[in-house]
């Protein structure tokens, strides 16, 4: 076996670990040792402001917990300082006297806050804002003291000041220039920012140079060069950072302000690299996070032997992380004679936008108040995009009322969760889109997991695609197959099954040239359904192509146990059935018996091997609570007992349930039947909702109370029970024949249109008869009651549910 490359990383911060993570994605050919000065695992320093304002805890901002290092096979030394890289002996020397040999070294020692070299800077109560310890000290100080000063009106200073205000301190920001954030903002935006922050309780002393920190052992105030003083019991210095270069100096590497690196992140010594805030690249030391990722990417590729473009410096973008203040700047932001600026200042809305053009190329921008266009502008600056009439209209909202389209996803913060099921943030999606060149919803789904579970976030993900790709994205524009195995649509497949007479999933996949020979968990159940729908008499259902629940005839729970829901036609049961349910539940020791939302009883937590016995002893039919089939028919008491009732809803409910149960539908189907318009059984949220009134029934379709709530539409009114059953059959068969697999009636109605359904199933009497005939054919060839089938087939029972135990 090839010997692994010994890689030593000095510094356990974001830069070093990001480079390591990027490297590990490319290769596993390195043995990695990490030497970190801080006693804890690495954390996201950018989030310190959130820790300070209390919206996040230390645990929230840990990037890689200790277990990650173990799992990744990384040797981690915390609380240890590397003092020198001995480039002749090729070892890293540590302060505890130990040495580690290396093939490659990454120096990622970061930076420290710059402490102004003024008298009194060493007094108690004077700190920088850089680490978790600083956060702790600030929170401590807020409990004991009242008056604080923050020296530095840059990004970090303002975030620290806001944090201290939130902790209840009286805070003055002291700043040498005349306006805030002069390295990121122009004066106009800075003034607007100051006004907003003053409203939030910050005070400012601008144009003030701190000459001395006064007081005894502990700081008591600041004296400025103009002779004035400011009282302060606690001082935070946030005047900038200084790259940590001591180790590099001791190792005799080339150092200016930072450790000098070339376009491939190499230092002056062979096999020694440096990344992040400790470096100086083309004369620039960066203090922001984006360059660190970009340098890390080039470095990782270099180490992994993957071809890489050189690093040519970063365009820096800034966003201030203070709640209620939206400021953004990217690239050039100051007007110089060779620049042309597009500016909008809306004093009423409190927004400001400036786009800086250099030779008509978008070179930078400043936004205040509304930063919707931030990511777009950042992208344009990075691309060096030229300003066009079109782009101008887009960016300024000019050219008509619809200049800018509302895009809710654009307003999300980077770490806002887009997909709540799988915990996918906006940033993860945007990164996947930009870094891997994704262009479709399905690609994003496959790559990030977003919208893979409930699908509720699909519109948001599409908006993000739109947002990132701009005009390059067309929702549903490119041809999408029903899954990754094919490019054919549902309609094309169904047509091919009919025309070519395909009779099994295997045949479909062979003839239609499936990419994965035996399909996947998406297409197999779908094809199984289409085949059964098209060839009701002859198709042999494939158990192995059914979802677990439909195969086992019970709903699997997260611990691998199952739930059992017996049929109770129309929501009616008997004392004898209730007693059986109670007896079985006791005998099999189920942890929970629960009422369902559909007027039935759910026996929860049955072991797989007990399922056949439970069914046998219940001796009731399956309620199909697991199936893409008719689930429940909810009824009210109706004319039989209710004083308002006009129709026999219980009787009709039970009749419909018996008639339409036990065949496959594209998705689950729920009914409700009501005896009067009071609608106690809630027809409006059911696939088929029936409302009785004096002299007839109303039929509603396409209701849904689930993921996407939708009120049912009135399809028609009928006078007789026969008409009711006939039209219901026609609607259900039309749904079976035209809906996509897994498409609920609510989506189906919206897709093909209520009017069309009305024409086909109500107006066209001949067509309706044919639909009903096909429904009857399906109903007449339906399978045996599934629980009975298992109970009576010993072989099936053993093979599917039996538990085999070996003990040695």
């Amino acid at each position, binding site marked *: 076996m090839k010997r692994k490359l010994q890689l030593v990383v000095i510094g356990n911060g974001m830069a070093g670990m990001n480079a390591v993570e990027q490297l590990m994605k490319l290769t596993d050919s390195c043995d990695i040792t990490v030497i970190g000065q801080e006693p804890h695992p690495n954390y996201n320093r950018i989030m310190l402001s959130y820790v300070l304002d209390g919206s996040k805890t230390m645990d929230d901002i840990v990037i890689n917990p200790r277990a990650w290092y173990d799992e990744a096979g990384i040797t981690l030394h915390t609380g240890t300082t590397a003092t020198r890289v001995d480039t002749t002996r090729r070892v890293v020397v540590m302060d505890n006297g130990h040495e580690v040999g290396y093939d490659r070294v990454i120096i990622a020692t970061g930076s420290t806050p710059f402490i102004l070299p003024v008298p009194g800077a060493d007094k108690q109560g004077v700190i920088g804002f850089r680490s978790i310890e600083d956060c702790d000290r600030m929170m401590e100080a807020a409990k004991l003291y009242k008056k604080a000063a923050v020296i530095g009106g840059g990004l970090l200073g303002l975030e620290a000041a806001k944090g201290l205000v939130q902790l209840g301190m009286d805070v003055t920001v002291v700043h040498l220039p005349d306006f805030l954030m002069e390295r990121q903002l122009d004066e106009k935006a800075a003034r607007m920012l100051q006004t907003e922050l003053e409203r939030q309780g910050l005070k400012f002393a601008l144009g003030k140079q701190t000459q001395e920190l006064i007081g005894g052992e502990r700081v008591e105030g600041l004296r400025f060069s103009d002779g004035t003083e400011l009282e302060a019991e606690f001082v935070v210095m946030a005047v900038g950072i200084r790259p940590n270069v001591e180790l590099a100096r001791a190792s005799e590497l080339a150092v200016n302000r930072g450790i000098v690196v070339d376009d491939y992140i190499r230092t002056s010594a062979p096999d020694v690299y440096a990344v992040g805030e400790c470096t100086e690249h083309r004369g620039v030391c960066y203090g922001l996070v984006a360059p660190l990722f970009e340098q890390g990417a080039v470095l990782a590729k270099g180490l992994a032997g993957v071809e890489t473009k050189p690093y040519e410096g970063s365009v820096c973008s800034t966003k201030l992380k203070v709640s209620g203040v939206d400021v953004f700047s990217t690239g050039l932001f100051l007007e110089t004679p060779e620049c042309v600026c597009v500016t909008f200042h809306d004093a009423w809305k409190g927004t400001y936008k400036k786009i800086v053009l250099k030779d008509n190329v978008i070179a930078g921008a400043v936004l205040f108040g509304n930063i919707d266009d931030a990511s777009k502008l950042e992208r344009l600056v990075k691309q060096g995009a030229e300003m066009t009439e079109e782009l101008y209209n887009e960016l300024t909202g000019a050219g008509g009322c619809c200049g800018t389209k509302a895009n809710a996803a654009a307003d999300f913060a980077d770490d806002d969760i887009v997909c709540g099921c799988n915990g996918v943030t906006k940033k993860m999606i945007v990164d996947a889109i930009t870094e891997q060149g994704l262009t479709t919803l399905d690609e994003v789904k496959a790559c990030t997991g977003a919208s893979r579970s409930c699908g509720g976030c699909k519109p948001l993900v599409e908006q993000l695609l739109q947002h990132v790709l701009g005009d390059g994205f067309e929702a549903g524009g490119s041809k999408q197959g029903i899954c990754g195995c094919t490019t054919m649509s549902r309609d094309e497949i169904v047509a091919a099954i009919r025309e070519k007479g395909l009779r099994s999933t295997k045949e479909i996949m062979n003839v239609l040239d499936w990419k994965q020979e035996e399909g*996947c968990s998406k297409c197999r159940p779908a094809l199984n359904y289409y085949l059964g729908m098209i060839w009701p008499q002859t198709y042999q259902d494939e*158990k192995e192509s059914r979802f*677990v629940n439909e195969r086992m005839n019970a709903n699997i729970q997260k611990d691998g146990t199952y739930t059992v829901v017996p049929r109770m036609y129309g929501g009616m049961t008997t004392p004898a059935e209730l007693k059986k349910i109670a007896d079985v539940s006791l005998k099999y020791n189920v942890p929970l018996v629960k009422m369902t939302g559909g007027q039935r009883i759910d026996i929860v937590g049955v072991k797989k091997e007990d399922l056949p016995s439970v069914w046998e002893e219940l001796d009731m039919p399956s309620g199909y609570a697991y199936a893409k089939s008719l689930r429940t028919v909810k009824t009210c008491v109706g004319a039989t007992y209710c004083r308002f009732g006009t129709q026999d809803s219980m009787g009709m409910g039970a009749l419909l349930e018996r008639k339409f149960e036990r065949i496959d539908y594209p998705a689950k189907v729920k009914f409700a039947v009501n005896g009067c318009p009071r609608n106690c059984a809630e027809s409006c949220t059911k696939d088929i909702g029936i409302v009785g009134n004096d002299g007839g029934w109303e039929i509603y379709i396409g209701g849904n109370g689930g993921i996407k709530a939708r009120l049912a539409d009135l399809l028609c009114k009928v006078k007789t029970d026969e008409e009711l059953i006939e039209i219901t059959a026609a609607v259900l068969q039309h749904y079976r024949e035209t809906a996509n697999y897994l498409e609920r009636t609510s989506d189906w109605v919206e897709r093909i249109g209520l009017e069309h359904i009305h024409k086909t199933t109500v107006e066209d009497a001949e067509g309706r008869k044919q639909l009903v005939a096909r429904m009857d054919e399906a109903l007449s060839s339906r399978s045996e009651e599934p629980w009975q089938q298992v109970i009576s087939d010993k072989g099936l029972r053993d093979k599917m549910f039996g538990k*085999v135990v070996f*003990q*040695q």
Partner: protein
Amino acid sequence: MNREAAWVAVGKQDDFMPRVGRVILINGVEVAVFRTTEAVYAIENRSPHPKGGPLSEGIVSGHYLYDPLHDWKIDLRDGCVQAPDTGQARTFAVRVEEDSVYIAVM
């Protein structure tokens, strides 16, 4: 491997329905056995997904298994989870001799 693997006979090939998993409890470890068109595979009946759950009820395609609860795609040959997800389930060696299925246990 320090210890010699022990082969346990778990049944005839026909005891396993094609592409439908079956659980065998061997020395307290739940093993899900799948007979595919290619071979017989044995994998620990525990999803590598952080939320766990069984694997035996997944949909089988070739030598891949789709996790029934989370739809992760897992290679039955080595237990490796396919991208974009990551992880690995424990697998066991399987031998088929004269129609009998044997699983290697430690």
